[in-house]
């Protein structure tokens, strides 16, 4: 096992996790808002925001799916050492990590059941960069409208029609994070 497996955890777990969780919650509550989270560092090519997100959200009860490109032995060992989250297939995943292309097909992920819509997957989508431009977002948590450079639009529109079921997404790039919950309506920019 290489050294990187054991490195990259929170240096001060209670505080770092609380800060990251607060930023994560803000991002999800205000879709399109870009927040900064730091503290985690996973083996390449995982961004530090995605690593911090995994440290904050994953534990032995949450199955994690590593999409091709992010699925390396070093990453598996890192996840196991730092979070002890079980590594599962896309169909069983509570969290999935990868690039937008690698995470396809989207119908593999859990969308919850009517009695328990919370039993849905949360996708952590690694992006090249995050900017407040591109697709137009509206819905709960957004005053008027917001903008975010989403990788595509049709998939999120289809996901919106499943509401209250559906998956939720985080987008990560470097130490930046934004979120798109299933409740947000996505349109082409005017």
């Amino acid at each position, binding site marked *: 096992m290489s*050294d990187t497996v*054991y*490195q990259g*955890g929170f240096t001060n*777990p209670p505080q770092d996790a609380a800060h990251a969780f607060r930023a994560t919650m803000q991002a999800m509550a205000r879709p399109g808002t870009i927040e900064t989270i730091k503290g985690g560092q996973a083996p390449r090519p995982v961004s530090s925001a995605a690593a911090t997100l995994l440290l904050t959200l994953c534990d032995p009860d949450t199955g994690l799916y590593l999409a091709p490109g992010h699925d390396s032995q070093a990453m598996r060992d890192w996840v196991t*050492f730092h979070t002890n989250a079980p590594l599962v297939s896309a169909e069983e995943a509570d969290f999935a990590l990868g690039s937008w292309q690698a995470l396809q097909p989207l119908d593999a992920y859990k969308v919850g059941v009517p009695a328990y819509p919370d039993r849905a997957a949360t996708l952590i989508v690694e992006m090249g960069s995050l900017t407040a431009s591109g697709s137009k977002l509206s819905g709960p948590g957004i005053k008027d409208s917001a903008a975010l450079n989403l990788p595509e639009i049709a998939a999120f529109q289809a996901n919106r029609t499943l509401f209250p079921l559906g998956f939720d997404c985080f987008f990560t790039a470097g130490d930046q994070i934004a979120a798109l919950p299933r409740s947000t309506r996505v349109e082409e920019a005017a």
Partner: protein
Amino acid sequence: MSKNQNNLTNEQRARQARLSVLATASSDQLKALWHRWTDANGAPEYTLVRAPEIGTVMVRGRAGAVGAPFNLGEITVTRCSVQLANGAVGHGYVQGRDKDTSLAAALIDALALGDQASALDADIIGPLQAEADGKATERAEKAAATKVEFFTMVRGEG
């Protein structure tokens, strides 16, 4: 874990046995032996990979050691991971809430990955193992002394 038992190398088996002894050893004795070791050999340089943290684990048992496993109850456990200057990473899981003990266990594990394994086994693991064996024997003897032999009188049929 048990399903992989057959695939372990001898080094892994030895490490497993060592960690098992450290995990169940008495905190005071482990620390006393560790201090004696560091006084003689010097304290190793290390960085904390995972600072000592306290949690619980579920202890499972089997009735008569053969029945279906059941959850006996949770015990408090302190764990810690360290990396030595030479890159060796050691993990310590010990019973109780003593962070120093888990740190000592992690350091012993890390040092034993190097060329000091036999010295550590002789100076620390051996005495702890002997203590544990002694306690087990003592308890078994106490239990054996109270054993009651049941027998049934043959009841006459007329």
